[in-house]
């Protein structure tokens, strides 16, 4: 039987040390807190990465007590607690709760004195990270209330984490940036995108910049096109209220997929430090544009899932889901073609697609290289395939490289094979959830994996022609129906067919 852990690995990870800290979560009664944030903090606690002087203060409008908050959290972590009861017992003593309505200044004043009290009990040294896990409409006022109460005054001891979506479009993002930057320094603002917390997304940086073999060919001279896919098998589930007003473009493309695009396409930074990395990401996003900004319908396809599944397990269409307008035109699928106007990528199409209820859950970046200039050999499959490097973000995290080899036999026929790297096979241990990494980084004050104001604005600006068209003349960008658990509308295949290409079937 294979050992579950490598005994020589135990205790070797040298993680950075988080200073004494109180993490304040606004929206503590919400879904994200109990599904992601508290489990991530508990994981950090179990990994001994939280300092002994740590406290979590949950804040929301509900009039809970500390004890009620602890009980609610323990209920949502039942499985994790079963295996680590002692750890939970110790960890839960660090959980506190304060009823706060961010729009009531008197609540925020009360919060301030509660924090001072916690500083005394838990020796948290007035180091505070405020996490805004509230509805986006409260971001601006939330920051203002914290600033007015003097809670963001010390840039070394206080920071604010803001969840996505950061704005609804370029203008609103710009104005939100102005407001939060009036409340705190940019170095205190951490705009979170949990995709950046994924090992495999960070691995794109390592793969590119720690290996000499990739960078020389990572450009228009060798790469013919890049496809970035994030496909989900689930539907809208219980998020209809939010999803109806956002759609796939705002929910996935503007943030997660655009971050993958930036990391894949950015120039090598001079140093591995937050500003160098974010400078390069911002630069590449500023150089990116839709393949046809004047006629966006020629480079973008929207879709909406209709019913599907099997007789025994039928699946509802989007418009039949609870909470969805029966005439909704919200897209659950979007595919588009982009270009990046710089020396490295001029002329190389970037195809991006994301959708719900697709055939398979997968996220990946696929780089297709140019064909060999001369085909000397017959290909077993008819035509020789181009080399491909596929970076698998999830599931089955890893990378694969496809190249041609000689097919066994007397002739000289070529056929493609794959060279694989799998996180599981090489490391054998599951990597942390994105939030584990990002919460730790925020408390450490390391903004490398958080998006800076100019990045967010550049990302929104990139999709402005589409957003405006959807707003002003939606009939020009209709939502084409596609059957649940297929690869999206046929119009999306046509988008690539025009370039004599096919979407990769992961």
């Amino acid at each position, binding site marked *: *039987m294979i050992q579950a852990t490598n*005994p*020589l690995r135990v205790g070797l990870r040298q993680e950075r*040390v988080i200073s004494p800290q109180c993490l304040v979560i606004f929206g503590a009664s919400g879904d994200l807190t109990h599904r992601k944030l508290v489990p991530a903090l508990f994981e950090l606690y179990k990994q001994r990465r939280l300092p*002994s002087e740590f406290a979590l203060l949950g804040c929301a409008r509900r009039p809970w007590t500390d004890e009620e908050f602890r009980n609610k959290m323990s209920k949502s972590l039942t499985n994790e607690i079963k295996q680590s009861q002692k750890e939970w017992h110790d960890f839960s003593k660090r959980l506190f709760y304060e009823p706060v309505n961010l729009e009531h200044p008197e609540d925020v004043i009360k919060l301030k004195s509660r924090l001072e009290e916690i500083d005394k009990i838990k020796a948290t040294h007035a180091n505070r990270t405020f996490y805004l896990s509230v509805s986006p409409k409260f971001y601006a006022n939330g920051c203002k209330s914290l600033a007015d109460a003097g809670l963001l005054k010390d840039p*070394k001891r206080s920071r604010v984490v803001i969840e996505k979506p950061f704005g609804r479009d370029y203008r609103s993002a710009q104005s939100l940036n102005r407001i939060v930057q009036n409340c705190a320094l940019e170095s205190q603002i951490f705009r979170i995108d949990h995709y950046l917390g994924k090992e495999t997304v960070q691995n794109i940086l390592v793969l590119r910049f720690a290996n000499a073999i990739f960078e020389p060919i990572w450009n228009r001279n060798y790469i013919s096109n890049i496809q970035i896919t994030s496909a989900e098998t689930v539907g809208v589930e219980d998020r209809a209220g939010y999803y109806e007003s956002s759609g796939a473009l705002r929910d996935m493309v503007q943030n997660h997929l655009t971050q993958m695009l930036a990391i894949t396409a950015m120039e090598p930074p001079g140093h591995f430090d937050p500003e160098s990395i974010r400078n390069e990401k911002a630069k590449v996003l500023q150089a990116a544009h839709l393949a046809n900004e004047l006629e966006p319908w020629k480079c973008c396809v929207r879709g909406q899932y209709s019913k599907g599944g099997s007789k025994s397990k039928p699946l509802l269409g989007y418009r039949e889901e609870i909470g969805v307008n029966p005439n909704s035109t919200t897209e659950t699928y979007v595919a588009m073609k982009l270009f990046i106007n710089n020396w490295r990528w001029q002329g190389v199409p970037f195809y991006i697609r994301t959708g719900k209820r697709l055939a398979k859950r997968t996220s990946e970046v696929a780089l297709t290289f140019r064909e060999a200039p001369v085909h000397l050999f017959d290909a077993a499959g008819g035509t020789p395939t181009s080399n491909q490097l596929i970076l698998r973000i999830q599931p089955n995290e890893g990378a694969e490289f496809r190249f041609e080899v000689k097919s066994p036999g007397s002739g000289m026929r070529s056929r493609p094979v794959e060279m694989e790297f799998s996180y599981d*096979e*090489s490391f054998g241990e599951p990597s942390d959830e994105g939030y584990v990494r990002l919460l730790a980084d925020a408390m450490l004050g390391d903004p490398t994996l958080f998006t800076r104001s100019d990045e967010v604005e550049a990302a929104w600006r990139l999709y402005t022609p589409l957003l405006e068209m959807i707003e002003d003349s939606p009939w020009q960008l209709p939502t084409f129906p596609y059957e649940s658990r297929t690869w999206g509308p046929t119009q999306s295949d046509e988008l690539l067919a025009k370039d004599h290409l096919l979407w990769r079937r992961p």
Partner: protein
Amino acid sequence: MSPQLTLQTPLQIPPQEIPGYLQKLWAQDQSDNQGANTFCLLVWHPAWLEQKLVNTGRINGPVIGLQRSDLVHEARKIVLEKDLPHSTPPLAKEVFNCLQANKISEEYDDFRGQHIDSAISQLQPRRLITLAPNLDKGHDLETLVAAYCPLPEEGGGDSACGDVIVLKGDTNSLKEGLHIVDELIPEDLPSWLWWNGSLDEDPDLLSQLALPTRRIIIDSALGNPTHCLNVLQERIKSGQVVNDLNWLRLRSWRETLAMVFDPPNRRNSLSNIINLDIDIEGEHLVQGLLLASWIADKLEWKLTKEVEKDGQSFKTKFLCSDNSMVNFRLMPLPVGKPSINPGQIIGLRLICQSKTNEKSGLCVILASESGECMRLEAGGVASMELLEEVVPLQNNPAEKDVALLLESSRGSTSPLLSNAAPMAKELLNLIESEK
């Protein structure tokens, strides 16, 4: 990155006036910055060899207390000149001892405690207190104080400031002035003692400085191995936070060995280890013993009482939880140009042989250079799956390693070191009994 100097010339102030002066200094600060809220580092910084080399005119002053290249170069020359064994580490006590005390340079500057390595200054220490003993007797206590701001390397500019205090004089006058040190260490910040010298010298002074509440940094490669491991183990046992630079230098060996067994399909080989060989530079056994003890602890091996001296090497056995035995051999090897740090590991061989399938086996060789790889390949491993990695020796200046410890400390002794140290001590006792 070059070392950084204090911003102002240090002022010579009588010891009793220092606390008052510092209070005034921070109160006068125009900004509301009251100094960094980080840590205080107390350094015992004798730099005996450097003092002697400057004293005898073999290298130029000033004395700065850092492992500079001309110091190491000159020390290596002395090893050859004085017919010391070639594997004598350049900064070893033997090199110091063989130098004549012919004083040539009468006056030289002594900047110990004022030259702050940028790796340390970047951590924005609140207070650096250096005890800089003078080689010559008859020097009264002299205290220097300066405010200090780390220069931002690039961008930044929000560095918090601290202060630097240097106590100079001969060892006796320094000891007389020790009471001032306690007064100068801020109570509300973590305080560290870096014993930047051999563990053999002045155990009383070490005890006086290494109060239980202070986190200590020592180097178990400096001093008699038995004494080094005694200090290490006793301090850990007493509950003090102990950081060992010699243990820290093992990190790439630990990491590389763990990396070999990360793929799940290799993990079973860990239960089939039959041989563990470790080669070290020179005769300081501590690092080799610590690595063996770490492996034994992680794989739940117990030490047996068997020990044998075979030529230069020492052999013993570990008992595994399934009652099988692992042969362990520690081999001190003479080397032509030894590292600055005595007893560094230069090779490790681990042989795994399945009990059920004798034909399959895995031989893991980690070595600091290819010659050592070839040496370890000998001895019937040809039929096994061979896995070789080159692990570069850790030749960071001590200041860089200290900065790493300051930065990454969790305020407790590494559990890995806590577990390995007692077994390393037991192993050394066994070896000593055979000598």
